């Protein structure tokens, strides 16, 4: 199930906002499409990201894909445990498989993202292509 309390980008990142900090990762649909994740490249704490910037990449056995920041802000934390356990992205994408925490500089950007229901409609369309 797609968590109701998060927002979603067309490039399949989610952001879960608490206060002025958002936790970013990839959706369950995205991890299934990628298959077994073997490593995740993430930015350093302190990196300033603009909406749409490449924030890192994910290598799965079969392919690499870029990660894009769904909002603007400063990276305040990265999930260090993914270095040793990249498979967390597959097993728990919305929980222990999170990637970065970002301090929002333009909180309004979050409202532009899809809610869970819209995202589910969106992936239905994607899957049917």
């Amino acid at each position, binding site marked *: 199930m797609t968590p109701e309390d998060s927002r979603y980008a067309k490039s399949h990142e989610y952001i879960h906002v608490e206060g002025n900090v958002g936790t970013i990762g990839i959706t369950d649909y995205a991890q299934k499409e990628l*298959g*077994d994740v*073997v*490593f995740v*490249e993430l930015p350093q704490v302190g990196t300033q990201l603009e909406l749409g910037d490449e924030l890192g*990449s994910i*290598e799965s*056995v*079969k392919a*690499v894909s870029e990660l894009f920041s769904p909002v603007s802000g400063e990276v305040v934390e990265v999930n260090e445990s993914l270095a040793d356990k990249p498979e967390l992205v*597959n097993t728990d994408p919305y929980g222990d498989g999170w990637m970065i925490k970002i301090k929002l500089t333009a909180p309004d950007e979050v409202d532009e993202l899809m809610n869970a229901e819209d995202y589910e409609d969106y992936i239905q369309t994607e899957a049917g292509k």
Partner: protein
Amino acid sequence: MIETLLKKTPLHPVEHQLGGKMVDFGGWELPVQYSSILDEHEAVRTHAGLFDVSHMGEVTVKGPQALPLLQRTTCNDVSKLEDGRAQYNGLLYPTAGFVDDILIYRMSGDDYFVVVNAANTDKDYEWLLECAKGMDVEVRNVSADYAQLALQGPEAERILQPLTDLDLSSMKYYRFAGGIVDGAASIVSRTGYTGEDGFEIYCEPEDGPRVFRTLVDRGVKPCGLGARDTLRLEAKMALYGNDIDHSTTPLEADLGWIVKLEKGDFMGREVLEREKAEGPRRKLIGFEMVDRGIGRHGYPVIDCGEEIGVVTSGTHSPTLKKAIGLAYLPLERSAPGSTFTILIRGKETRARVVPTPFYKRAKS
């Protein structure tokens, strides 16, 4: 819609039922994975896995001049084949570039069964027809007459034996025989594309789904193209379109063992003679990443800003748990131990030439 455009193998309905995640593979709708590439890979290395390879093409070459045709169009020595034996070979252009890499089975006397890569089937068939002009030989594309299953892994023989009248224990590597498998008239050959022991089973399309199901019911894990790629790469088996193509020669591709200059004249021989004397310009080598990253197909190898080579295949090796790949490097840079730089999405990333294959199964 995809469904109407893509070709389907006879096993398509079973793959769908088993939860295969289907993708477009060179115009064929095939499963890239069922559960996970890592799980499927491990099943083949430690137990047994089952692949649908019905998309592969089959061409028969029969008649008094079947052997002369095959000798002239390939680089390995087909005259060394006996009935019931298979051979890996290169179908070459006069430039010594690959038309395809193929398996040739000698069924009996001047009756040969040639197994070709799916995407090359029409091209190979037409090439052989063209080369056969004026010769007393019949070339036929019989691809639609066969389903092909690959049962691979250390447990393959134990699992298949109760289902067949053939004595598998006496069938050595690269031998084959006709027999019954799960009630289906089949050709069973001890061959594969995984670096593991195993069998390839050719049967009639309508029997394919039942045989596939029977094997899965006996505990064989259905596997997709993803695991097939990681398995073949660990075993350093070439993939046409990635590691070899019309622009690469067998000597460049480090396939010198299939080049038999002493067999007489054949297409590409002059080029190969010269390459053998002078050394090929470039060579396909195996590498491991030194820095983090995976060098993948098409990524350039650079030196002082200049492109000196290219990665042809790359993946995370599930068995070795590190990033591996194949690349063409200039001959003088190809010795094991030497390092080089791959440009991974704009980032200079170091890799090291290593001996291949990356994985070799223990002799039983």
